[in-house]
């Protein structure tokens, strides 16, 4: 990450020891065994450490240790990746990233999300469609003093654990976002399993759900920029968490190369394997470099942020799952057992590869953005 101020180092070490104690790989297996995504009390304590306040300005009850909340949040994600931590960091951060752009009427929701009392998620995907956040089929029809929401969303992270959803919907021909409580009449939530050990998703139906006019977040004009910001936050969190995962996996796989002997030699002394290890190191440093660039661009709200994020998301998504498979190969048979921890990382990395746009989709976006830049110049 970027320069380490004493405050950030302290924040990092507090976060890291909390994760090591309370979100170990053993704990992840226990949660999986119990069919639990995460424990509400655990999330409240994580929120107390400051994880949920980083994107929120001080006047709304938030604040970051370094003054660069986006970079601090990416640091939390990277540390969380080291132990494949459970929890709704991504959906809560993504919702907060939207709400702080237009906090009016939503101060209480922001406060409850920051405190960890309430979990919220972004209902953005539509069933049967790839990543296309501005293409909403759910409708919000003006009704009385508010709106009536109808339609279906899916792949809503932690949908079953969320009390509120930020729903992308079409209203009078334009895309808007609305805060909808999951206990409102007409909302039904059906869990969807993922390939991750604990992360769950949900299909959410809205059947004539009535919400107040104040449920709208931001104006129609603001919405596409807000959605872009939320998307960028979701994507850099994925990339940063993957960097944390890769670091842990590479560390123990390299150690394996020193410790494991065959034909009287350590594995890492064979050139064919040494070269594979070299590639892993190269790709890891490249993943870190491109993630750092994307985080910096998003933090500074640079006009190049969308491009930088798509570049990172494409590169990291293209390489990370294959790197995990290479590490599995380097481990030999033990690597494909349930007992070995490799699959815990492989699951999460593979999940992130394909959520919020595949590498292939981001390649198309990078091309389209390049085309736009060239037509302007």
């Amino acid at each position: 990450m970027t320069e380490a101020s004493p405050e950030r180092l302290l924040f990092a070490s507090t976060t890291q020891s909390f994760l090591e104690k309370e979100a170990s790989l053993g704990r992840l297996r226990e949660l999986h065994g119990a069919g639990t995504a995460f424990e509400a009390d655990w999330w409240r304590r994580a929120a107390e450490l400051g994880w949920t306040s980083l994107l929120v300005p001080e006047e709304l009850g938030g604040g970051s240790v370094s003054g660069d909340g986006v970079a601090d949040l990416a640091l939390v994600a990277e540390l969380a990746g080291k132990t494949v931590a459970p929890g709704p960091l991504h959906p809560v951060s993504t919702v907060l990233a939207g709400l702080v752009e237009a906090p009016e009427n939503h101060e209480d929701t922001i406060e409850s999300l920051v405190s960890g009392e309430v979990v919220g998620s972004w209902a953005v995907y539509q069933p049967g469609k790839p990543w296309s956040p501005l293409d909403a089929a759910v409708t919000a029809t003006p009704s009385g003093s508010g709106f009536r929401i109808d339609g279906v969303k899916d792949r809503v992270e932690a949908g079953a654990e969320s009390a509120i959803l930020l729903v992308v919907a079409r209203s009078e021909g334009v895309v808007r976002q609305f805060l909808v409580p999951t206990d409102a009449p007409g909302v039904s939530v059906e869990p969807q399993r993922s390939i991750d050990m604990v992360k769950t998703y949900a299909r959410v139906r809205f059947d004539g759900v009535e919400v107040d006019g104040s449920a709208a977040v931001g104006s129609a004009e603001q919405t596409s920029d807000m959605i872009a910001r939320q998307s960028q936050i979701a994507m850099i969190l994925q990339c940063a968490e993957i960097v944390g995962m890769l670091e842990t996996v590479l560390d123990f796989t390299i150690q394996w190369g020193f410790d494991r002997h065959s034909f009287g030699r350590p594995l890492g002394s064979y050139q064919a394997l040494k070269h594979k290890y070299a590639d892993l190191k190269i790709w890891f440093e490249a993943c870190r470099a491109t993630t750092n660039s994307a985080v910096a661009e998003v933090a500074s709200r640079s006009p190049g942020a969308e491009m930088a994020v798509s570049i990172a998301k494409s590169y990291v998504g293209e390489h990370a799952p294959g790197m995990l498979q290479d590490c599995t190969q380097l481990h030999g048979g033990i690597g494909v057992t349930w007992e070995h921890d490799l699959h815990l990382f492989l699951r999460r990395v593979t999940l992130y590869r394909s959520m919020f746009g595949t590498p292939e989709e981001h390649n198309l976006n990078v091309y389209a953005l390049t085309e736009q830049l060239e037509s302007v110049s």
Partner: protein
Amino acid sequence: MTETASAPTETTESVEEFAARARAWLAENMPSIDPINPPEHDRGEEAPWLRARELQTKLYEGGFAGICFPKEYGGLGLPIAYQKTFDNESRCYELPIILNTPTFTICAATILDTGSEEQKHQHISAVLRGDEVLVQLLSEPSGGSDLAGVITRAERKGDRWVINGAKTWSTSAFAADYGLMLARTDWDVPKHEGLTMFLVPIDSPGITLRRIKQVNGSVEFCEEFFDNLELGDDAVVGEVNGGWQVASRQLYHERRAVGGGSEFASGIGAEGKSDVPIDYVALLQATGQADSERAREIAGRALVHRAVREQLIDHVYHGVLDGSLPPAAGSIIRVTHADTHHLEFDSVLALSASSGVVDVGDGLIRYGERYLSRQTAALGGGTTEIARNIIGERVLGFPREYAADRGVAFNQVKRNKS
């Protein structure tokens, strides 16, 4: 060996002020160019070298030569941020790009690390003035990757050294003034311990030079034959039998330079049309594929890898500087350079389709021709196999490859079957 002595000196001028001054000076003094369509600086021709010397002299006289070289040898002694900003400001001007590698980034950098005070004063200031071009005389026809196995011999005759042997793959030696030449001075010790580096005047009697023609028709590389070439002690760089230490610095600087990670390079423009980054948008338009999702995805992926390569260069440069990565991590840049190059050439071959292999008049056959020499990016500047060994052994710390010649007197080592 310590790090290259380019310790930044104090300056009162901020990077922004420096940029503004450079901007004004460049506009006033340097020929402007279209960076998309730059003048051809073919390293195989004589004229571009004369032109490069002229341009370098202008830079020197204007006070913008050797931004990261120490002041006492004619540079400006400034941190890399000043060089980067100068690179940015100079994009639309003609610069002596072909002097960057090997003259500045490898040879001058190595002389700075290992040369005598006289050599530094004489040669570093001469290259910065545009008076000298330097070249490396390392590889031999008998082998490239096993550099310490060179068999060019330097024998002591009275107070002179007499050189016999051959070197190859020296970039544009025909246009150079001096070459850093590695020769064997002791055959009775293991290979690394009997080498000495010499700084050889290229026009000396006893040197015969021949051009090498490559697959793409380029004739920039040369081979040199030494027949009783005579040199004095002042030609020795570093210690007698300490040549491997000097060569190691060259290799270190070369790996950084090849990937684009040297602070001693000035200007980032292309050397000619064939060196300009591929414009995928123009290519897709020219081939009627602007709306093809398949073609756009291939091009987008290549653009992603191109961008990440730049981000990685910056990350590794700063990682080595702050100690989070060892100096050998320069090889990460070297491998990525080749991998990105391959991906781009493969992508453009796919996108240009049959126009890349049959000349239908649209000029795209140049991409097919470029593809034919794709592997040069993985060979020149040390092979990617050696670079991966270095990453495995010196970055990750794995055991070194078995070597049959380790600890064996060189005259007992098995060599090529002739």
